[in-house]
Structure formats: C-alpha cells, structure tokens
C-alpha cells in the first residue's frame, strides 16, 4: 500500500505546463571548509600545487565556456580569470609563506575577496557566488575530488538543487535533464528563466524537495506545481500519456491563437531586436506585441540618427507584411538609464524621470523616433502601432497620441504600467487607440516593491488579485470604448494566467516566442465563458498563491 497521495506530493511553483518523470540526481553539496593545520610541505611545494590547481581550473572553465557560448561564456571566462587573478595569487602567497596548506590558503584568500564583494551588496554581492564556485573548484582539485556542482550520472535525470546559478546552467547537459526541481527560488529565478527559455519541465521553490533521495523516481508536474514521490504504476502511466499528448500538441500545426469557442486571441511576440523576427514567425507569432527600441540607443552616448533608426524599423516591419507590429518608443530610466536622456542621479529611479516623462523632457528624441517610424511604416506593408511607456496620466496619453498622429502614425496607444492609468483607462482609451498592459511594472508599482531588489522579490507576482483587478479595469475600459487591450510582459507567457487575462478583457497576448506553443494549446481548452469564470475565481482570492490555486481548480472543474 502506498501512502496517501497528499503526503507524496511536494508543492512548488510550476513553470509551464509540462510533465516528466525520472530518477532524481541531486546537485552535490558544497565541500566542508579545510582546516587550518600547518602544512607538512614547504611553502614552495604548496605554491607549486596551488599554481597547478588554479591553472587546471581556469583551463576547464574556459573550455566549458567555449562549449556553452553566448552570455554563459562571458561568465565562465570571468571565473577563469578570477582563478588566476594576480591579487588573489598575492594573498594566497602571503598565507603559504606563513606555513599554511594550499587548501586553507586558497579558501581563506577567496573568502577575503568574497567578504569585500558581499559587503558592497547588490549586483556585486551576487558575484560572490561566482567566486565561491571558483574556490570550491580549486579546493576540490587540490584534494583530488570531482568539482562540486552539476551531477552527471550517465543517464537522463531529474535535477534537484537549491537553485541554479548561471554558471551551473551553462554546464548543464540539457539533453540529459528530464526536469528541474528547486527548493529555493521563485518564478523569476535563474532556474525558472532557463526552464522557460529551453522549455524544460520545472517546479521551483518546492521546499520539501530537500528530502528527495538520489536515484528515487519522481513525477514532476509543472502544470499542477507538484512533485510526486513513490508514484504508482497508474500515476506513471498517466504522466507518460500526458507528456506524449503534450509533445504532440507542441508539434501540432501552428494555428492562430483562439479559444475553444473560436474567439480569436492573437498571439504576438515580444522582441528587442529586428534579428529575432524570423524565429518569432517560425514559432507562429501573428505579429509583434512589444518591440523594444532601447537596443538602438543603449550602445551610444548620443541618440542614433533618424536614418539609422529608419533602417532598423524597416528591417523589423518588413518581416511582418500585413501583420500588426506594436513598437514602444524609447523606455529609458530605472533599470536602463541612458546618459543623454537623464543623467541626474535619482534616489528612486523607478519613480523618477523615466519613460514618457524622460522623452517629454528631451522631445527632440521622441520627435526623431516618430519621424523614423512613420517613414519605415510608409516603406513597408506591416500594420504599425506605436505606444508610449510609463504613461501615468490622461494628459500624457493625450499628449503622446496627438504628437504621434501629427507625424502620421495611424494607431497610437499607451502602455498601462502605472496603477493611475489602469484606474483611468476609460478616460485614456477615449483618446488613445489602444492600451497594452506591462504586467511587470504594473506589479512593481501596485505592490510598491522594486522589481530589481531581491529582498522584495516575493511581491513581484502578477497573479496578485490587486494586479488582476487593475487589469480588469483596463479590460472593461477597452470593451466600453471598443478599443483593443493587449498584454505584454511575463504574465502572458504563463498559460493559465493567459486564460485569466483573456477572461479579464485582454484581446491579444504578447510574449517571448518560446512561450507561444504552450499558451496556444491552453487557450484552445477554454471558451470565453470558461475564461471569465476562471478569472472571477482568481479575482476573489486573497493573495497571489491562492489566486493561482483558485484558477487551477476552476480550470479543471
């Protein structure tokens, strides 16, 4: 007799809709710190050992960097340089000269740098973890032990870890990973981002998973946010069937986004660069719901010329003939400061001169951007929509809409990211042609929690009923004014939340192109009436977690 189902279910937050089963392999625990016994070797002998070890570790990190490529390669090459850092070598040398062992000298020298970084906090504090990883590798090499980190049991496995660092994920052989389970970290953790990007089944923040044994078989159900231990034969078979049904759905022919009753819900792509257009089209994007123009600006000390901008916009629009492309004018400030727009130091940049406020203060930049967009529109067959970021007042919406129309933009709208504009969406949509809800910023402003600050990350959940109520305001305003209301931001990529958003009145959804297949498949399972019932269930909850559970229950009824 197996135990009752509930005690075999470990709850966490599921990423995506997948289900997978397999044997557990745990991320190895950190090595115990070396003791400070005097060395039995001479300082020169210890020094030679350490030199050999840091070089070996540096070469291995570099080699893994070459294998991984991309952003991971930079992280790994930086780690290789940390291993062979000359200041670190001096610190190690001082300790060896005092008769310490190589292991202890490495441990203690790394720790002194680590403490410096940790004390500086923020981004530098996070780099302390990279340094720890290098120290662990060097000490493991000195002891003749395998480097701690990602396991390689030689067969496909369910990886169980506290959370994955970027360096870990770079080393992961994704072909062998059946699913990811973490005991810490939430929906915005590195693990969750990796899982979404690579479509890996994942349950994050499953605290009880610390008790999972190496090699035991589990079912990881991301749709339910549950890890099942000691699964019965029947449970395994059901999971297997669901996994193959889902594989079939994902490889099913791409259709336009729609609900089960035929209500169309266009599925659009979020893009940050015209180069991503071809991939988005291949994954079935019916257009672009958010094109971020920052990439054109971030690289330069001055704004790009009208000609440079026109060329980039034309390239983008040409990839979507006859389709909708929503371009957001420059959104600078807060997490993406631009010196030529606003170089004043702000105590609180998220509440500062950013978005449309910054553009208004440098209106020439906005006017040039609108000129370039209108020219690119005239030269291509796409349906160009243009919107302004961070609109907080009706007056700003009127200002932008009028200015954009002056330049010949046919469809001018605003992003709803500030609670004030959600609450006055009925007024805003009587002027503007459309609204697009940026759920990440809307969540940050509604819950007054800086989305870049780790200590308040738990507030950054778009399932929060307060956020959903604001979205409902915008949805209602769209209906009464007969204007479209789109969603862009992480929220639309969560398949169940996507259904809720449609139930709240969203008329199109825009997301990372890799999320399109799951969202498309989920929308097809529910009618508009279902979506409204599921949305009502979520709206009635007290907090984000219970809203998610309530929506899950309503969706499976």
């Amino acid at each position, binding site marked *: 007799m197996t135990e009752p189902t509930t005690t075999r279910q470990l709850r966490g937050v599921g990423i995506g809709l997948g289900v997978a089963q397999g044997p557990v392999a745990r991320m190895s625990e950190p090595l115990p710190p070396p003791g400070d016994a005097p060395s039995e070797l001479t300082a020169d002998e210890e020094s030679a050992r350490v030199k050999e070890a840091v070089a070996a570790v540096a070469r291995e990190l570099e080699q893994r960097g070459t294998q991984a490529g991309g952003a991971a390669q930079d992280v790994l090459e930086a780690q290789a340089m940390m291993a062979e850092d000359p200041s670190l070598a001096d610190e190690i040398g001082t300790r060896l000269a005092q008769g310490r062992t190589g292991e202890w000298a490495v441990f203690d020298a790394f720790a002194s740098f680590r403490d410096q970084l940790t004390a500086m906090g923020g981004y530098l504090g996070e*780099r302390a973890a990279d340094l720890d990883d290098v120290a662990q590798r060097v000490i493991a090499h000195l002891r003749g032990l395998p480097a701690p980190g990602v396991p390689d049991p030689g067969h496909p496995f369910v990886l169980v870890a506290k959370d994955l660092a970027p360096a870990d994920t770079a080393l992961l052989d994704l072909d062998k990973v059946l699913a990811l389970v973490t005991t810490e970290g939430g929906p915005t953790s590195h693990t969750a981002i990796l899982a979404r990007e690579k479509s890996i089944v994942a349950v994050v923040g499953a605290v009880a998973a610390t008790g999972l044994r190496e090699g035991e078989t589990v079912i990881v159900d991301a749709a339910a946010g549950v890890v099942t231990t000691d699964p019965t034969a029947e449970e395994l078979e059901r999971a297997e069937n669901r996994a193959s049904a889902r594989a079939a759905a994902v490889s099913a022919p791409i259709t336009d986004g729609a609900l089960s009753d035929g209500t169309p819900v266009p599925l659009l792509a979020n893009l940050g660069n015209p180069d991503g257009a071809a991939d988005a089209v291949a994954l079935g994007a019916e257009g672009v719901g958010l094109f971020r123009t920052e990439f054109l600006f971030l690289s330069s000390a001055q704004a790009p010329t009208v000609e440079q901008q026109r060329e980039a916009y034309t390239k983008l629009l040409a990839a979507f003939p006859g389709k909708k492309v929503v371009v957001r004018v420059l959104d600078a400030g807060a997490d993406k400061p631009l010196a030529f727009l606003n170089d004043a130091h702000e105590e609180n940049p998220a509440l500062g001169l950013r978005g449309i406020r910054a553009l208004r203060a440098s209106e020439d930049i906005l006017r040039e951007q609108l000129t370039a967009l209108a020219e690119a529109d005239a030269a291509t067959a796409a349906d160009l929509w243009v919107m302004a970021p961070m609109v907080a007042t009706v007056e700003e919406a009127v200002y932008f809409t009028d200015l954009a129309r002056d330049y010949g933009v046919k469809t001018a709208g605003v992003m709803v990211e500030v609670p004030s504009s959600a609450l006055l969406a009925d007024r805003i949509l009587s002027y503007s042609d459309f609204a697009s809800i940026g759920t990440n910023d809307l969540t940050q402003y509604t819950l007054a929690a800086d989305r870049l600050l780790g200590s308040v990350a738990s507030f950054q959940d778009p399932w929060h009923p307060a956020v959903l109520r604001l979205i409902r305001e915008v949805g209602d305003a769209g209906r009464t004014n007969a204007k479209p209301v789109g969603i862009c931001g992480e929220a639309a990529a969560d398949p169940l939340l996507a259904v809720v958003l449609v139930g709240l009145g969203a008329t199109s959804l825009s997301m990372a192109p890799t999320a399109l297949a799951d969202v498309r498949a989920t929308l097809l399972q529910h009618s508009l009436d279902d979506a409204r019932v599921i949305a009502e269930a979520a709206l009635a909850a007290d907090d984000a977690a219970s809203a998610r559970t309530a929506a899950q229950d309503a969706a499976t009824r």
Partner: protein
Amino acid sequence: MPSISRTVRIGSAHGLHARPAKLFAQAAKDAGIPITVAKDSGSPVNAASILGVIALGVEQGDYVTLVADGDGAEAALDTLAELLTTDHDAEA
C-alpha cells in the same frame, strides 16, 4: 621612463563589473606592463586583477584614473581608455 596617467569617465551601463570588468582586466594583462586603476582619489589596484577591478565598485559615470609604466604605456592607456568609455552591455 616616467609613468603616465589618464582619467576617464565610465561609459558602460553596468559600470565596471561583469563583462566590462573581464574585458578591461584581460586587456590590462595582455598589455604586459604594470598598470593600475583607481576610482576617484582612492588607492590604486592592479588593473590586470579582475577581482581588484570588480571590488572598486565602479558605476557608469564614475571617473577612474589609469597609471601605466614601461614600453608602450601610451598605447596601452589608449586601448584601456577606449574600453572604459564604450558601453559593452549594449549588445547584450
């Protein structure tokens, strides 16, 4: 040969950590001569030390002073100053 110095303003949006710090320390190491970097009027650190460079905590808009000594010091500082004033995170 006297040592030469130069003060520059940081252009990278991420200051002098992560990728910019790596590129900078790598270039300083490749120069093959002693080079130091200091933030404002702080104490100088070995520019070839990625850890030392990161620990300066240099942000975009900060001023740093480079000092180089030896053959090719002028050219080495040109390269490093160029690195520091460009925004390397732009393409990421």
